[in-house]
């Protein structure tokens, strides 16, 4: 069949001929096999005839059909599978040795070589190695796609599926377009697909490039022929060229995007040495950089740039150097902070912004190209948060879908064996460590399986519970202690500021330096408490390393979130209402500066941690303790540090629109420092690390406590805290949220005909009912989705049952085949012996 196929194709001359030869040559090798097969076939017919005399007509008919079916299939695949038959025959023997019979029902008995041959040419087994089978599989796929795209294929393109079912076989007959080879059908199908689908299909085919090229050329030729026949109209020719141009520009765009990705070689080096686990930390860092770049692009374009073009006043405070640390001083009255931004409408020269709202101000000439700063501030921050949230939720749901497929069954061993090898790891030592790890993990899993039911004694369990209880008590107590400490310390600082405000003879530099104490204390806590948690963690014993990792993450998260909670309370509940008592004109500036200081301190302590925790610890353990092992990079803790920093940055965007830049710089530096530290000080992790599940968890943590917490704080600030009365874009308003309403009122005054808009604004934005409706719809959608998933789960289990039944059927049929074959052999022997006795 393939021979025909090769002949019927219009083969281009040149090197392609070698290809066609490679198709043909196995045919020569296996000339013997089809004849062999024919022999089996004939003998079966005879036997079946005998058999049907015995009254088993129906089963015999089935067998006959099956036999011819299998025959057909095997002849289909024969040219390529020919040489493997010999191999298979040898393989069969070793199978038997390895199985021991009881767990391999099909191959359990000594099959004859003919049965083995049929077994090996079953479609489910040829699809993994045979080109013809792959082509026919893709032929069906393209056909399906075409049907979905509803470009009606002609009737002759419809083919029986690549795995003909037993029942439909007899009805359709054997003469199903044998002359149209599978490949030609595939070319036909491909040619009728839209270009993008065709490219996707071709790319996704597991064939070699040379073969794909051949198919593509055939498709192109055919298309050209059709095009020239049709004599294209000018319009469709233009369309054709546009499509080609668009595709080319798309490719160049893709490669441009690819070249934009920073740190490729560095990431490759890390993954080559440490594998996917440590790599996921750096990838997470990269994602954070992208989030911050996005945030900065938004605030930069809509807030910083317009304001920087129209500076309200110049404040000349000399630069003293301490600003870099405290963020105050000469930095205070710049675009860095909220207080600098104007509360009026900027006269427009260059830019045009404010969403669609500007369109409605067309009537008043003075405002025609104006930029309403308060409104822009409000909407920019709101939209930035909203879009970030959408991106995060989207990526979260995507990773969730990837790492928690529905209908999870516990096939850990299989997954471990098939997918644990990290092909990225290329360093020899790391490869060795990895294979050792895999060996021990497999052994542990096996041991667990065998002694799963050994129950631990009550006493042991009690002891373990006690240890866990003590560990948790220590962790919670220390966290609470630190919380209380930070609470009282911040109160003390606040009181101190109030006193200093009254006392005028204090060095302003000293005052600024004092501001650094709170961030330092918090950073010290953030550095030391995780170490304590680690110590406590050594005390406990957990059954699985993943539980251990989750517990560690949970404790660190608890600490960081409680710290941030206390700080938010300090800023929003203590500083904001009584800012005048500590001598501030603009509390938003103060909070922005505080957040800047926290970010900076976090960075400095990351540096210290890297230096002491990794570099010095390695030197210490190498030189003093004479241990060969280097420390292991603690992915979870480092990622949580990143999340903490990101929460600070998100909190600060409202008060300091330039904060994302600081965060970007910080992340860049952290990337290089951590990279060199990891390369220098650490060794490949010994524990198994489920990278994708961890990534899911990290993204979730970034979304749920981090972004959600930050946006709750920001929303609270906008909705219900009175902004400073003498600075910032919202200085005359009760709350920031009033900006929209205020603008609406102005609009209504200017243009009474737009009162509908203002009413709509009051009705939709300020009425909580619509918020509830939106949330309700969202919940309903989620509910329906979960119901759909539930239904799919049921169907999957049904299908699994069906597959099992099919397997049973297959076993039954093969058994029948074998027994019939044996009978025939016995009959032959009897005949022979009769002959000899005669």
């Amino acid at each position, binding site marked *: 069949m393939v021979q025909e196929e090769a002949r019927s194709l219009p083969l281009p001359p040149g090197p392609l001929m070698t290809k066609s030869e490679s198709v043909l040559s196995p045919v020569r090798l296996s000339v013997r096999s089809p004849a062999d097969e024919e022999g089996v076939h004939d003998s079966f017919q005879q036997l079946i005839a005998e058999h049907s005399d015995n009254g088993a007509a129906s089963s015999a008919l089935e067998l006959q059909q099956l036999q011819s079916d299998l025959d057909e299939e095997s002849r289909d695949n024969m040219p390529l599978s020919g040489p493997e038959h010999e191999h298979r025959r040898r393989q069969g023997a070793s199978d038997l040795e390895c199985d021991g019979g009881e767990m391999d029902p099909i191959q359990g008995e000594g099959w004859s070589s003919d049965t083995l041959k049929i077994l090996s040419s079953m479609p489910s087994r040829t699809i*993994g190695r045979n080109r013809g089978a792959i082509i026919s599989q893709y032929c069906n796929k393209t056909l399906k796609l075409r049907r979905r795209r509803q470009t009606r294929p002609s009737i002759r393109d419809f083919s029986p599926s690549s795995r003909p079912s037993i029942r439909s076989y007899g009805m359709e007959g054997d003469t199903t377009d044998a002359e149209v080879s599978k490949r030609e059908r595939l070319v036909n199908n491909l040619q009728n697909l839209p270009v993008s689908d065709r490219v996707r299909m071709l790319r996704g085919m597991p064939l070699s490039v040379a073969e794909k090229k051949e198919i593509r050329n055939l498709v192109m030729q055919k298309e050209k022929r059709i095009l020239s026949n049709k004599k294209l109209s000018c319009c469709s020719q233009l369309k054709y060229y546009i499509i080609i141009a668009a595709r080319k520009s798309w490719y160049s765009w893709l490669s441009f995007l690819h070249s934009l990705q920073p740190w490729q070689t560095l990431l490759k080096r890390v993954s080559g040495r440490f594998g996917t686990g440590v790599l996921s930390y750096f990838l997470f860092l990269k994602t954070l950089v992208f989030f911050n770049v996005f945030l900065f692009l938004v605030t930069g374009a809509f807030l910083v740039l317009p304001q920087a073009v129209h500076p309200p006043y110049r404040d000349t405070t000399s630069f003293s150097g301490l600003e870099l640390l405290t963020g105050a001083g000469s930095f205070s009255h710049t675009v860095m902070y909220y207080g600098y931004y104007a509360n009026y409408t900027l006269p427009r020269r260059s830019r045009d912004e404010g969403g669609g709202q500007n369109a409605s101000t067309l009537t008043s000439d003075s405002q025609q190209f104006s930029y309403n700063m308060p409104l822009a501030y409000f909407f920019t921050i709101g939209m930035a948060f909203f879009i970030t949230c959408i991106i995060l939720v989207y990526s979260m749901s995507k990773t969730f879908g990837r790492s928690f497929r529905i209908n999870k069954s516990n096939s850990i061993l*299989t997954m471990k064996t098939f997918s644990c090898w990290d092909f990225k790891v290329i360093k020899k030592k790391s*490869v060795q460590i990895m294979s050792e790890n895999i060996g021990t993990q497999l052994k542990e899993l*096996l041991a667990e399986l065998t002694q799963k039911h050994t129950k631990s004694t009550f006493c042991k369990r009690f002891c373990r519970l006690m240890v866990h209880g003590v560990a948790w008590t220590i962790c919670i107590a220390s966290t609470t202690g630190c919380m209380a400490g930070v609470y009282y310390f911040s109160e003390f600082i606040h009181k101190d500021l109030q006193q200093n405000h009254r006392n005028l003879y204090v060095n302003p530099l000293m005052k600024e330096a004092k501001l650094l104490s709170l961030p330092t204390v918090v950073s010290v806590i953030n550095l030391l408490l995780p170490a304590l948690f680690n110590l406590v963690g050594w005390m406990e014993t957990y059954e699985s390393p993943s539980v251990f990792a989750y517990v560690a993450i949970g404790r660190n998260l608890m600490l960081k979130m409680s710290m941030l909670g206390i700080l938010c309370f300090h800023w929003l509940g203590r500083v904001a209402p009584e800012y005048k008592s500590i001598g501030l004109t603009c509390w938003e500036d103060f909070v922005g500066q505080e957040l800047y200081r926290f970010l900076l301190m976090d960075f400095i302590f990351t540096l210290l941690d890297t230096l002491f925790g990794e570099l010095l610890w390695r030197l210490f353990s190498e030189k003093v303790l004479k241990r060969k092992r280097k420390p292991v990079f603690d992915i979870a803790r480092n990622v949580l540090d990143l999340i903490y920093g990101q929460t600070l940055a998100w909190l600060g965007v409202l008060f300091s629109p330039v904060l994302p830049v600081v965060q970007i710089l910080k992340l860049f530096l952290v990337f290089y420092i951590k990279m060199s530290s990891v390369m220098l000080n650490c060794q490949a992790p010994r524990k198994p690390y489920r990278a994708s599940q961890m990534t899911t968890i990290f993204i979730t943590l970034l979304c749920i406590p981090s972004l959600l917490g930050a946006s709750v704080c920001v929303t609270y600030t906008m909705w219900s805290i009175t902004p400073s009365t003498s600075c910032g874009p919202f200085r005359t308003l009760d709350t920031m949220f009033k900006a929209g309403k205020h603008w609406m009122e102005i609009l209504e005054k200017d243009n009474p005909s737009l009162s509908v808009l203002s009413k709509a604004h009051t009705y939709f934005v300020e009425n909580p009912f619509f918020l509830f409706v939106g949330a309700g719809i969202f919940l309903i959608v989620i509910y329906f989705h979960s119901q759909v998933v539930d239904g799919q789960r049921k169907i999957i289990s049904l299908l699994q049952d069906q597959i099992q039944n099919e397997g049973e059927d297959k076993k039954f049929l093969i058994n029948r085949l074998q027994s019939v074959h044996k009978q025939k052999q016995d009959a032959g022997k009897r005949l022979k012996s009769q002959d000899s006795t005669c």
Partner: protein
Amino acid sequence: MGTTASQLSKESLSEYQELTFLTKQEILLAHKRFTELLEKHEKEQIDARVPKGRIITLPELKSNPFKERICQVFSTSEQKDGSLTFEDFLDLLSAFSDSATLEIKSHYAFRIFDFDDDGTLDCADLEKLVNCLTGETNDAKLSSTEMKQLISNILEESDIDKDGTVNLSEFQHVISRSPDFVSSFKIVL
């Protein structure tokens, strides 16, 4: 089929971009690395083959226990000697690239693990696979009873139609549920 070894023509470059999961830069890099492997007199030759022995000296493959299988699977050589042309090399990189689909990755993984090329993973294949994973050192290698138990467990978990071997669709079924596979089945030049 203009794969002159010295220079890639623009047409073939865009053709390769269309047929593989690689970007332009990756193809060019692959070409550079491939020509480095060629000997001097082969550099001008069209469709020059690099023998398996030289391919596996690439640092990306050097310490990989599956290196010989990888060459074997991606080779289109008629002698089945595992030698690669440039196009085969591109095929290899495409299957191991970032943007390749799970389907293609699992297909090639299956063929790499199918040591005897018979289209299905039987006990002998699984045993070889596990041995490749654990390496040859004595303390990591599984004992024969452990091996037997492991293989019977694997078959129990993944062999849905209970025919004693893992075929391609069963393999893909397992792989689709293990999220780490896509990120770890990658080789970057």
